[in-house]
């Protein structure tokens, strides 16, 4: 039990964090927001999955991907293909030249469903594909790059290029993908109308629960050897390698994990918003996703949620109130965060927490000690590594 407490819930601070987020997502927001705003929050939270993936990859693994939109998009498209096929039954599409295929295929003179669409008639296949396809793509890319020790800026540039390639590829093959318009007009999930208020409530709570579940799973993974390895790699990669560990395997793992998380986010996005298009795949959304993680604090799992929520709500509220000026306000927000709080919101919270615990010097075993845990861990690991070097 104690092990569960420290590993999954990450001790007292972790449990406190979890409690705050859970109250916010499950009680406070549903109680105070109407369904329109709540649905928006649900949409923002789907990006939270990508941010969480970026915390793993960038914050913990030290590798910055500028192409997470690729995996978000892959997950989203897998889900959307299933929904589109369900929405394109021969009766509702009888006005088309070829009834029974998605409308955009008909507009592009296709007369039969392309082979790669056929498996997406099955919901289980589509749900598995939502996770497996992004993971597989990340695995191939990861092996190709990390085994060759491509990292840092080069990795960022390559992932960005892949985001561009995928969005152009979707754009250019509109008969197969819906092109620039994307896959739109999605209505039912196995007969369940996803556009109703009730469905939006249910999807919101599914999104929140899955997100928190992923955070707990991440904490469990990070509290073990995995976490120590990643921390060591991020700070001194060559030492870890010289100690005999396969650094690339860990990087590939984090990259795949981040991709899988993004894919889940993409699928949930499609369910809540009702469409997907290449504008969620390309360079701009991919970089926006990095900003979410940066604002939240790139090393903080919970920060990912707050960052995503704050940036996206800012985007919605600023643009509603100041349609002409809102981009400047958003730009100002980013600059302010990066300049004033380089560790994001999580960094601000840590500072405040430290100040409070410094004031309460009488209880030295409290929060401040836990905050130092990371550096202690690093110390543990680098000590033997140092010895090895000698």
């Amino acid at each position, binding site marked *: 039990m104690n092990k569960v407490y420290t590993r999954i819930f990450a001790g007292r601070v972790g449990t406190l964090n979890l409690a705050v987020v859970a109250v916010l997502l499950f009680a406070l927001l549903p109680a105070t927001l109407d369904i329109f705003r709540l649905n928006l929050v649900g949409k923002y939270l789907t990006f939270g999955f990508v941010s969480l993936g970026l915390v793993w990859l960038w914050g913990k693994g030290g590798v910055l991907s500028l192409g997470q939109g690729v995996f978000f998009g892959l997950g989203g498209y897998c889900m959307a293909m299933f929904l589109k096929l369900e929405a394109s039954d021969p009766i509702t599409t009888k006005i088309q030249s070829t009834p029974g295929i998605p409308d955009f295929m008909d507009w592009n003179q296709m007369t039969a469903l392309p082979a790669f669409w056929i498996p997406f008639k099955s919901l289980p296949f589509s749900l598995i594909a939502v996770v497996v396809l992004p993971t597989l793509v990340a695995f191939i890319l990861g092996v190709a790059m990390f085994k060759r020790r491509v990292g840092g800026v080069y990795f960022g540039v390559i992932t960005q290029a892949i985001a561009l390639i995928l969005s152009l590829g979707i754009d250019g093959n509109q008969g197969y993908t819906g092109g*620039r318009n*994307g896959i739109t007009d999605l209505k039912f999930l196995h007969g369940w109308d996803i556009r109703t208020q009730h469905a939006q409530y249910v999807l919101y709570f599914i999104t929140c629960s899955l997100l928190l579940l992923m955070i707990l799973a991440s904490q469990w993974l990070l509290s073990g050897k995995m976490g120590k390895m990643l921390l060591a790699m991020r700070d001194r990669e060559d030492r870890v390698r010289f100690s005999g560990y396969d650094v690339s395997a860990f990087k590939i793992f984090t990259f795949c994990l981040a991709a899988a998380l993004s894919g889940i986010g993409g699928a949930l996005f499609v369910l809540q918003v009702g*469409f997907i298009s290449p504008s969620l795949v390309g360079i701009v959304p991919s970089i926006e996703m990095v900003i979410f993680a940066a604002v939240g604090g790139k090393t903080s799992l919970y920060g990912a949620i707050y960052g995503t929520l704050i940036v996206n709500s800012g985007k919605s509220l600023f*643009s509603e109130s100041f349609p002409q000026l809102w*981009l400047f306000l958003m730009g100002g927000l980013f600059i302010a965060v990066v300049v004033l709080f380089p560790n994001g919101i999580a960094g601000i919270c840590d500072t405040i927490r430290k100040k409070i615990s410094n004031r309460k010097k009488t209880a030295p075993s409290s929060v401040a000690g836990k905050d130092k845990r990371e550096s202690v861990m690093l110390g543990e690991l680098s000590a033997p590594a140092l010895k090895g070097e000698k």
Partner: protein
Amino acid sequence: MIPHKNKSKKVPYFRRRKFLGALLAVASLAALSSGAADYPTDKVNTTGLAVTDDTVTVGQLHSATGTMAISETGSIQAEQLAIEQINAMGGVLGRKIKIIVEDGASDWPTFAEKAKKLLVKDKVASVFGCWTSASRKAVLPVFEKENGMLYYPTFYEGLEQSKNVIYTGQEATQQILAGLDWIAKEKGAKTFYLIGSDYIWPRTSAKIARKHIENVLKGTVVGEEFYALGHTQFGSLINKIKLKKPDVIYAIVVGGSNVSFYKQLKAAGITSDKSVLLTISVTEDEVLGIGGENLAGFYSAMKYFQSLDNPNNKAFVPAFKAKYGANSVIGDVTQAGYLGPWLWKAAVEKAGSFDVDKIAAASPGIELDKAPEGYVKVHENHHLWSKTRIGQWQLDGQAKVLYESGLIEPNPFPKGYQ
């Protein structure tokens, strides 16, 4: 005429009038008779829209920022001008129009979010907005689900018809067929080279053009090429054009690509004295960027040109310039955007109600005599009857109108062209 119970503002007004004698009372009632009092709010608004005793709120949803802002600004301005003019005339059913402006930011998910906000939160009576097909496709399910009304200004590919949308621009056949007929007849054209940007509108337009060229005009398409949006290198294309020597270059290139396309054509010596070019994607707005000198002598097929010579347009152009500056230009879509609020006003007045269902039902058959493009009528399929006009571009960036077709019936699902 008994003022309605809920009219808190009007009741004391009438009480005071009682003391001022019968004559004054009659006079004041007569003055109100054409106003809101004839249309009590609970009668004209049975679905909870943002309609009060003296205002009605509508939404405007275009891209004020992002790559599409440059194109959509004209529509934003024209719609606001129309609403201002309607308000100056006393509004709709005696109610002044208030606008809630939302920015779609050239981003389709944002369009969907804002459309939902306008319909669900703000309960707007109608929305004027969208420009690209992608943005319209993104908001369409929202409008159908929440039962809103969208006035969409852009000429587009057709293949769509919705109870919840009034398409004030041309669908593809209205823009393409008459223009091709004209160029085939005037220039004796037999061979065509089709060039477009790579997305649904140019692709569908090229498909319709090809069918018409091959089946009706008995001509041939000697080349058909599509380039990604934003493409700027047309060197190899220009070589192919020089090789094939088509009678007509048919261009459906959009946005920023236009500037490089026409400049490179000119640099390569493909100019109007030697070649014929017909486009359906260049309006006065694009010419502003391309430069009249790079385009002079080429043709555009549109339903509206700023230079149109009719009394409606003679009033519209100065009003637009007075509000937005003497250097502003008015393109086809800008004019179509201007029609939106007027068509909505006419539909509301015909229906005697702001309810979306009633407006949708009342819209077919509505006529506008005051449209800058001339006479306009709404078809049962929620598109407009419109003319095709051929304009030849001049050095000053204005078009000389050479040809005008009769009114063409909108046909978003053209048989034989699919």
